């Protein structure tokens, strides 16, 4: 009996990775599961995928999904540059980068900022737990004001809102989700795979060992109580012939680069995920209330990505034949003559 396969004929097991070594109940594991589901359901060829990460608990996770894809666990906070290089080398690749709130917001803020500006095609996920797990629970730059460590230390520095920052810097797909919200996270990940450009996805992912206690604003309990979804996200891939009926004015429909449809069912009047200024305003308002706005916060589906801006040839640069990358003797002679 043939097992279940996806549209390119691959079984779910092809998308699995090695066994996780993270703590039982870690939000990151749930995110890995959703990544596996999304890539399977979208029928992405794992041979084309490159998994990238920095350093930290989050950055270990690419080993736990898509075990047949190439992976690169780079240095702390510098995954964006490695991912950029890989995509420059081969534009046919699909890049997914996994970072953490320390890896992105502290040591890696510089590379993060410039990645967002370039609109490189990459899905950049922050597994955000507000603390450094691998070094035993110090605050990270996304820790909220007043949030308390297990030791009783209170954070008195304002947090970096990575989503607001990403929108400000020019990212073209900015979303926030919660590792505990399977449905929303899966829909966002599938939409991310249909986007051509930088996807910045901040996933609140509680650290069960160091930041899941009373007084923490990144605990399961706190996040569940303060999740403020902007919309109900559903995604219809281009290869599925499904039409969705909805009352006019209740749904925002966004056509993605590959023809897929992103459907955002409005939960409140007037939120428009394509309005940059509105999105920024909404993030600030939600944060002031001590809540997390989740869903697709901002999307700009048709901006040129970095590779289009650089006008590179259609074939991967990595495998161009010699005659395309070494000019002939006449070129060298012309240069020499100009120097005589």
């Amino acid at each position, binding site marked *: 009996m043939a097992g279940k396969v996806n549209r390119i004929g691959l079984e779910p097991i092809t998308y699995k990775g090695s066994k996780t070594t993270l703590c039982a109940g870690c939000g990151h594991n749930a995110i890995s599961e959703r990544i596996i589901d999304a890539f399977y359901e979208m029928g992405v060829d794992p041979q084309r995928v490159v998994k990238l990460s920095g350093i930290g608990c989050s950055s270990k996770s690419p080993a736990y999904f898509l075990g047949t894809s190439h992976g690169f666990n780079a240095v702390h906070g510098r995954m964006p540059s490695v*991912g950029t290089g890989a995509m420059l080398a081969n534009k046919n690749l699909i890049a997914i980068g996994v970072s953490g709130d320390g890896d992105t917001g502290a040591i890696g803020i510089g590379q993060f900022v410039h990645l967002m500006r370039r609109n490189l095609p990459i899905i950049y996920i922050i597994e955000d737990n507000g603390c450094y797990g691998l070094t035993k629970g110090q605050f990270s730059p996304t820790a909220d004001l007043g949030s308390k460590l297990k030791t009783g230390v209170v954070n008195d520095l304002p947090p970096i809102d990575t989503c607001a920052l990403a929108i400000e810097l020019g990212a073209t797909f900015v979303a926030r989700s919660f590792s505990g919200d399977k449905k929303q996270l899966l829909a966002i990940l599938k939409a991310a795979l249909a986007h051509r450009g930088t996807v910045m996805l901040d996933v609140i992912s509680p650290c069960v060992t160091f930041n899941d206690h009373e007084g923490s604003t990144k605990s399961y309990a706190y996040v569940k109580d303060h999740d403020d979804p902007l919309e109900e996200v559903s995604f219809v891939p281009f290869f599925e012939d499904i039409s969705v009926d909805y009352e006019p004015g209740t749904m925002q429909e966004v056509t993605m680069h590959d023809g897929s449809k992103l459907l955002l069912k409005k939960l409140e009047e007037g939120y428009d995920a394509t309005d940059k200024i509105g999105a920024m305003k909404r993030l600030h308002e939600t944060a002031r209330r001590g809540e997390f706005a989740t869903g697709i916060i901002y999307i700009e589906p048709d901006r040129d990505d970095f590779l289009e801006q650089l006008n590179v040839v259609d074939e991967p640069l990595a495998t161009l034949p010699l005659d395309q990358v070494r000019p002939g003797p006449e070129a060298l002679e012309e240069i020499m003559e100009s120097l005589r």
Partner: protein
Amino acid sequence: MPPSDVAVQQQQSTSGKQRVVNDFSIQVATVNGSGSQTANIVLLRSLLLMGIPASGKNMFPSNIAGLPTWYTIRASKRGYIARKKEVDFLVAMNPETAKEDVLTLDPGAAVVYDEPLKLKELRDDLVFYPVPFDKLVAPVCPDAKLRRLVRNMIYDGILAKLLGIDLALMEKALNKQLGKKAKAVALNAGALKAGWDYAEANLTKQDPYALQPMNETVGKVLIEGNAAAAIGCMMAGVTVVAWYPITPSSSLCESLIGYMKKYRMDKKTGKATFAIVQAEDEIASLGMVIGASWAGARSMTATAGPGISLMSEFTGLAYYAETPAVIFDVQRVGPSTGLPTRTAQGDLLSTAFLSHGDTKHLMLFPTSVEEAYEMAIESFDLAEQFQTPVFVMMDLDLGMNNWMSSGFKYPTKPINRGKLLTAEKLKELGQWGRYKDVEGDGIPYRTIPGDGMPSYFTRGSGHNAKAQYSERPDDYVDNMDRLSRKFDTARKFVPKPEVDKVNGAKIGIIAFGTTHWAITESRDQLREETDVKTSYYRLRGYPFNDSLTEFIDQHERVYIVEQNRDAQLRQLMKLELSPERQAKLRSVLHYSGLPIDARSVTDDILSQEGFEVAKKEVRVVEAGLGGMTGGE
């Protein structure tokens, strides 16, 4: 220095009697941002058009406009192109430094100067040619705003007349330099003529320096080392370049952008067969290079010392995860910001072992623009062959100065992409492990994303031969030993030294990079002046190979000449040499920021050899170009 009767007598006895033909240096002292570079290059080109071997060196400040700058042109019938320590002919255009520039000249030197500076009063053992530049420039340049720039071309006209350069030939050089800018050519040609006419009518030749046509420059090109390296990179088939602007390496990537836009656009689609990214810093530059080469692209960056420091962590990753990377280090004076526009060979030790833990890296040492071109090509092959970072150790002198060279040869070797796993090889191997030493040379087979071969997980953390995470002691040791084996294999593949073994020579000299040019001249001086014979070992690559110990064994004393304070090459060599061989090593060190000159090397070696060396007064010029303080 007070003028002395002796000096005056000497000057009188030499002038007019002994002509000094095609063997002297001209120094032009100006203010940076005044357009003097055009005038200086035109002068240099004129010498080359006359068939006279010549070199030009720019000693400029870390500043855009308004600070003192010096340009030295050396004519040498014997083909010496190192910096000449003494200035024979000064063009003093900068009021800030003029006095000091004049006071530091040797007796008998000639000075063209801006008349209002009244330099003639300073010394009577020099030959002075006052020129009223402002009066001359006004009629030939009606636009007052342009006069500051055109003014400098007048001294070219003056020098043409005084030294014997055909004016038509100088105009040809001007045309070459300014190319299609017809208006600028006309304006500057007018200035040339004005200078010439003034000299003809008002100046009487009193100095001994003269130029005469030779036939030594046929087919030669004039090019900066950075541009030469850029051409090499293009010919090597580089596809991904990431860089961050830093003196003195910026012009390498900027030249490369120019050449690539001209020669590397796909003819059918008009699209680029390359991606060049100006990154946010040197860290990101190397990160992009590593990501690109991991994904199979030929990839490079160029930087200077401060960038090398920043690249330390990523270099360790590339070494341990075994991704190729080509890194040009156009060395400048450190530590820290140091002297950003001055030359040095001071990054050797830090680069050889860049990053934490046990790391060691391949380095190439180009000496000439031709070698900058050739080693650029070779570096990409080595990086892919050894799956490791390769550092091309240039310096500011090579990178940013114009050098005369033969035309570059078109590469004949095909590109070597190293051990990329293929379907056939996989079948032959049966089982593939990313870090498995199959052939005993320490070099494993690699796959790249999207090539259809087995994937692996790349990491800077501990891993075994199958690229799995591992903290096992035996896995760690095996892997580190294999990396050492790979490094040893590289000894046979990095560029071999150029050895000139002289029969009967008891003294050996070891040098690398631009120091070479002072060594060739110094060896002649040693032989001709004191009959000291020397052999010479020009190092071209690191790790060292067996020929090094052989060379040391053949000589009683070996001088290692380098442009840094701490004898970095000597220290690097000592790590691999027996105590007996170490005892033979001596150092000649030059680290003033100015390119090394032959006289200093010769005097230093002679003094260490026990000869009496006439100690000259330490001149301000040597102490660091007098007026060069303040401003940044």
